[in-house]
């Protein structure tokens, strides 16, 4: 019961947003738009949620296989420039869609990877994803324009990641909604190590 309540509490901002969206749709358009939207949203969910389930299990297993020390060294808070460059390159060559990417990111957050590096990865995957550029950008915008765009935007993910990291550090923000949970987890890990 508490678990259900917790999940509901976590979903609260999104539920409020859903209510606002539906209300403004009713206000500015009409009921058919809302029913149409709800149906297509439901269908989108049916399409994507099975993939996410598999991706979550995959991420859980991968995180067990990758040693914690390796994650900290390459993607942790002290990874520095090499972590950002790895994230930039990783984002460019990752072929998967959001249903696969975000479960991995979820696990990376749980493992306390750097918020800046995660941002660089997400931005690189969105902006510089090579498969998407070749499949969609080249046929529709032309190879020359697409290549130029990729080259010009190459530093953007690094800048975005670095800026987000600076903001998070300056204001002492944390990505985990419940820092207490993380602290107890760290104490447990440290106890196990000794």
């Amino acid at each position, binding site marked *: 019961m508490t678990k259900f309540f917790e999940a509901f509490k976590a979903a609260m901002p999104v539920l409020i*947003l859903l209510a606002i969206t539906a209300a403004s749709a009713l206000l500015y358009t009409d009921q058919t738009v809302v029913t149409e939207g709800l149906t297509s949203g439901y269908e989108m*969910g049916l399409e994507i949620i099975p*993939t996410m389930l*598999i991706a*979550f299990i995959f991420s*859980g*297993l991968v995180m067990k296989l990758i040693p914690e020390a390796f994650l900290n060294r390459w993607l942790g808070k002290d990874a520095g420039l090499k972590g950002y460059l790895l994230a930039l390159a990783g984002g460019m060559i990752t072929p998967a869609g959001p249903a696969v990417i975000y479960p991995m990111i979820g696990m990376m957050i749980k493992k306390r990877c750097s918020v800046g590096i995660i941002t660089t990865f997400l931005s690189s995957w969105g902006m510089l994803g090579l498969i998407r550029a070749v499949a969609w950008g080249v046929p529709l915008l032309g190879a020359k324009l697409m290549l130029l765009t990729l080259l*010009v935007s190459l530093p953007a993910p690094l800048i975005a990641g670095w800026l987000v990291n600076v903001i998070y550090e300056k204001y002492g923000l944390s990505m985990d909604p419940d820092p207490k949970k993380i602290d107890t987890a760290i104490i447990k890990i440290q106890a196990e190590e000794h």
Partner: protein
Amino acid sequence: MDYITNGIMLALSLVCAVVLYKQQRTGDLLDGIKAGLGMFMEMLPVFAASFLIAGIALAMISPEQLSLWLSGSNNVAGSMIAALVGAVAPTSPIVLYPIAGTLNSVGTPVAVVIAFVAGFSLVGIGRAIVFELPFMGLKYVIIRSSVALLMPVIIGLIVQSLYVG
């Protein structure tokens, strides 16, 4: 359902499971599966709601309306609007790239087209609401989106200044 992606992911999961089993880490194997399932269940209500939001938003704004808004605009002001429209467009690159292609072919300034492309691929608030909000929280979505929002216009203008027909 996306059978190819699902098949690949299942095969990769199986490889991980076999490796863990061979290393005689059955405990870790079960823990990994449990962690994945647990997180999935935690996220499910949020995702269900996010998909419904995306559905309604998409039904409210059609691709035709988007291209109509953007085709008449020019350079700096146009790029800003295009970046913003691209950023809040509630749909996926599969819909947005064709719009960018249409804009490009009807002679919209390159800066506007590229700002639009960079808007949806770099900022992507639709994607942020569906996928980032559940994992990273509202704070992260706001900070990342505002940081990224400045870049599409700059990228668009630089590309335009370098691009020769």
